[in-house]
C-alpha cells in the first residue's frame, strides 16, 4: 500500500472506530471510578446504552438553531480528527479544533438560559486557560521534528518525548481541562454534582446531547492521538509502548478526577498558565538554545 492509501485508511478508521474506542474508554472510566469509590459500577457498555436511549427521546428545544450549531460542532471535530489521522499539519488541527469548540459555545449560549450561559462562560475561560499550552505543544513538535506535519513527526527515529518532557507534562495537565475532569470540570461535568446543572449541555435534549457526547468522544480520540505522537517513532513496535502510554495517561486522568475536588476558575487559570510557562516555556527556552 502506498503512503497515501495508508493515511486515508487511518482517517477512515478514525471516523468509524473513534466513537467505539472512546465509548469503551468511557465505560472503563466509569467502572474504574466506581471501583475506586468502593462501588460496583455500571457495565462497561453503559455509555452506548445511554447514547441509544438519548437518540430515542423526544426532541425538545428552547432555541431552534441549536441543533444546527451542535451538528456543525460535531462535523468540525470529526474533520479535525480526520486532518490529524490523515497526517496533516498539527497546528492546523488545533486551530480547527478551537473553531469547532466555538460552535459548541455558540450552541449553548444562544438559549439565554442562565445555567447554560454560565457554563458557556466557564467553557471560554477553560479555552483561554488551555489554548497557550495547546499551541505550544505544536511548536514543541516543530522544534523537535522540524515539521508540523503529523505524517513526518511519526517517522522520526527518537520519540519526541525525549526532547519534549516539559511539553508533555504541560499537555497532560491541560488534558484534564479538555477531558472535563475534576478539578477542572468547571463548565460541565460527567457527574451530577454540578452547581451549574449541566453547564454547556444544559439545554441540549435527547439527540442533541447524544451528538455532543459522541463529539466529545471523537475529540478524546484526537487528543489521545496527540499524546501518542509524543511516543511514536518509525519503529513499528513503538505502537505497543505508544498505546501503553496513552492508556497510562488516561488512567492518570481518571485517578486525578477521583482524588481531587473542583477548584475555582481563578486557580485554574493561574495553574494552567503557570504550568504552561514553567513546564512548556522552560522546555521551549532550552530547545531554542540548543537547537539553533
Amino acid at each position: 500500500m502506498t503512503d497515501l492509501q495508508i493515511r486515508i485508511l487511518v482517517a477512515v478508521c478514525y471516523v468509524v472506530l473513534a466513537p467505539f474506542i472512546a465509548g469503551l474508554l468511557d465505560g472503563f472510566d466509569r467502572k474504574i471510578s466506581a471501583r475506586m469509590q468502593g462501588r460496583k459500577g455500571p457495565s462497561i457498555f453503559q455509555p452506548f446504552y445511554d447514547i441509544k436511549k438519548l437518540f430515542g427521546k423526544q426532541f425538545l428545544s428552547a432555541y431552534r438553531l441549536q441543533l444546527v450549531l451542535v451538528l456543525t460542532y460535531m462535523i468540525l471535530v470529526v474533520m479535525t480528527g480526520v486532518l490529524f489521522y490523515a497526517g496533516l499539519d498539527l497546528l492546523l488541527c488545533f486551530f480547527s479544533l478551537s473553531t469547532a469548540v466555538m460552535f459548541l459555545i455558540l450552541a449553548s449560549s444562544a438559549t439565554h438560559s442562565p445555567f447554560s450561559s454560565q457554563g458557556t462562560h466557564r467553557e471560554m475561560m477553560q479555552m483561554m486557560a488551555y489554548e497557550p499550552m495547546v499551541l505550544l505543544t505544536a511548536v514543541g513538535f516543530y522544534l523537535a521534528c522540524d515539521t508540523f506535519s503529523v505524517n513526518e513527526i511519526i517517522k522520526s527515529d527518537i520519540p519526541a518525548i525525549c526532547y519534549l518532557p516539559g511539553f508533555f507534562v504541560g499537555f497532560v495537565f491541560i488534558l484534564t481541562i479538555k477531558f472535563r475532569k475534576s478539578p477542572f470540570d468547571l463548565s460541565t461535568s460527567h457527574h451530577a454534582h454540578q452547581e451549574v446543572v449541566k453547564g454547556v449541555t444544559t439545554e441540549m435534549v435527547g439527540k442533541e446531547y447524544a451528538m455532543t457526547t459522541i463529539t466529545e468522544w471523537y475529540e478524546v480520540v484526537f487528543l489521545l492521538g496527540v499524546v501518542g505522537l509524543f511516543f511514536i517513532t518509525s519503529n513499528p513496535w513503538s505502537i505497543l509502548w505508544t498505546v501503553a502510554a496513552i492508556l497510562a495517561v488516561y488512567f492518570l486522568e481518571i485517578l486525578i478526577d477521583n482524588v481531587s475536588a473542583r477548584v475555582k476558575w481563578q486557580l485554574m487559570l493561574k495553574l494552567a498558565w503557570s504550568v504552561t510557562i514553567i513546564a512548556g516555556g522552560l522546555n521551549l527556552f532550552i530547545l531554542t538554545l540548543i537547537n539553533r
Partner: protein
Amino acid sequence: MDKLVTILICLPFVMAVLPAIIKNSKARAAVVYLCGAIVMALSVFTAVKWAMAGGKAMDFNLPYTEVFDKIILVGDFLLMFLIIYLSFKWKKGIISFLSIIQTLLVAGIELFGPEVEEKAVIHMDWLTFIMILIIGIIGVAIGIYAVGYMHGYHIHHHKELTDRRSFFLAMIFVFYGAMFGLVLSQSLIWLYFFWEITSVTSFLLIGYTRSEEAINNSFKALWMNLLGGLGIAVAIAYAITVQGTANLYDVISLAGAHNAARGALIPIAMLAFAALTKSAQFPFSGWLLGAMVAPTPSSALLHSATMVKAGVYLLLRLAVVMNNNYVGQMVYLVGGFTFLAASCLAITVSDGKKVLAYSTISNLGLIVACAGAGYQETVWAAVFLIIFHAVSKSMLFQCVGAIENTTGSRDIEDMQGLIMRFPKLAFILMIGIAGMFLAPFGMLVSKWAALKAFVDARSALMILFVVFGSATTMFYWTKWFAKILGVNPNKSRDLTKPNEYISMFFHAILLVALCVCFPLVSKYVVLPLTGEMYGNASAVISQGNIIVMVIMIVALLVIPTFCYLLTRNAGVKEVMAYMGGDNAGDNVRFLDSVGEPKELQVSNWYMEDVFGEKKLFTPSVIISTLIILVLLCTIVGGAF
C-alpha cells in the same frame, strides 16, 4: 505613470474643497459619492496599470518636482502655524514646541544644510501597490459610509452638536491624499510632510465634536504623533548631515550594507520609533483609545485604512535592515508585548468601540513584531495581517457605528440577541468577528505564519507572546460572538442607511473573497513583494495546507447551511429554557421569592480584578517605555 501618480496624490486634496464649500446636504452627498468613486477608480487603475506593466519596482520624479518641493516646504510651515494657533487657542501651548522644533529642524537642514544629490522622489513597488489598494478601496468605502453615518449622527442622535459635516468630509479627502503621498514618496522630506498631514488631520477629526473629552484626546493624539514626527525629523537631519542623502531607500541600503557605518542604524531607529508612535504601540497606545470619542467613520478611517497602517507600512519598509539587530529587537519586543498586553486589556472593556481599539492595537502589535523580526516569512505574514486587518476591522467599526446609531448604545452587553433584532447587522458583525480570529479565516492564517516564522527564528519569548496573546484574543472575541446569538424580545426599527449597508456588505464580500482567494493573493501579490525585498521568495505555509484551509472555509460556509437544511424538518417541540422551573412564561423572566416576575440578565465576564485597565495599563506603559529607552540608548550609544 508619473502623471497618473501626480493626479492620484493631488486630486484628493483638490476634491477636499468641494464638500467644504457645498452646504446643501443632498448635493454634498452626491459630490462625495462621485469624488469617492473617482478616487477609488483612479487608485485601482494606477495599481492595476503598474501591475500589468510587469510589477517591477519603479523610481521616478513627478513633473514639476521643484514646485512640489517648494509647496512642501511652505506646507510644513503652514502646518506648524496651524498647530501653534490651535494649541494656544485651547491652552495647550506647550505642545506647539514639538512642532516648532521639528519643523525648524527639517526646514533648516533643507535650506542651509549640505547639498544632497537630486534623486527620484517617488517609488512604486508591491508594498505600495497593496497600500494604494487598501487606501483606495477600504478608505473610500468608509468615506461613502461616512455620508450616511454622519447624517444619522447629527439628525437622530447628537442634535446638540454643531453640524460640521462639510469639514469632516473635507478632512477625509485630505487624508486620502496624504496617505497616497506617504506610501509613494521615497524622499524622506516628502514622507515627513505627508506624515505630518495625517497627524494633523487625525487630530482635527478626533476633536470633531469639540467636547472637553474630545479636545483632550485630540491633543493627546497630537503630541504623541508629533513625537513620532520629531523622530523622522531627527532621522532626516542625521541622514542629510552625516550620510549626505535624504532618500529613504538610500538610508536603508546604507544600514543594510556589509560594511555599514556604526551610526547607520540611528536614522533607522528614529524612523522605527516614529512608526511605533503612529501604529499606537505601547507606550503610545493612549491616542488610539482616545480617538474613540470621534464619530465612527473617523475612528474606522484612522484605524483600518490610514494612520495606523502608515506606521506599519514604514516598519515593513525598514524590515530588511531590522533582522537581528538592536532596532529589530526594540521593534519586535514592543510589538510582541503590545500584542499580549492589549489583548488582555481588551477582555476587560465592554464598550464595543474600545474592544475594537484594543484589538487594533493588539493586531498591530503582531504586525509590528513580524516586521521587527525582519525575516522573509514574517514579512509575508505581516502583509497578510495588514490586508485582512484593514478589511475586517473597518467592517467591524462600521457595523458597531451602525448599531450605535440604531440602538443608541455600543456596549457589548446591549447587543444581546442582536441576531433577532437586526439580523443584517448581526450577520455582518459575525463575519467580521469570525474574520478576526476563527480558523481558517485570514487573521488566523497570518497568525499561524507568524508563529511558524518565530519558531524558525528560535525566538522563545516571541513564541510565548504569540501563544498567550492568541488565547486572550480568542476569549474576548468569543464572548462577543456568543452575545450576538440568543434571545431578545425587544424589537425596534433599523435606522441604518442603505449606503451604510452598501459599504458594509461590500466589505463582507471582499473579506470572504480574500479568504477564498488566499492562495492566489499569496502567489501573485505577497510573494512577489517578499521576493522584491529579500531577493528570493518561498511560501511560509505550504501550498497543500493553504488548499486545506480554503476547503475549510468553504466547509464552514457549507456545513451550517447543510445542517440547517438537514434539521429543518426535525420535529422539534419548543420548550422554555431551564431556570429551576421558575420561568415566568418565557426565557427572559423568572419569578422571584414573592412571586413577582423579574427580568433575567445574562452578563459576560470582564475580569477587571485580573486584567483590569487600572491594573495593567500603567505597568504596560512603563515596561514598553523601558524597552524603547534601553534599546534606543544602546543603538545611539553604540554608534559613538
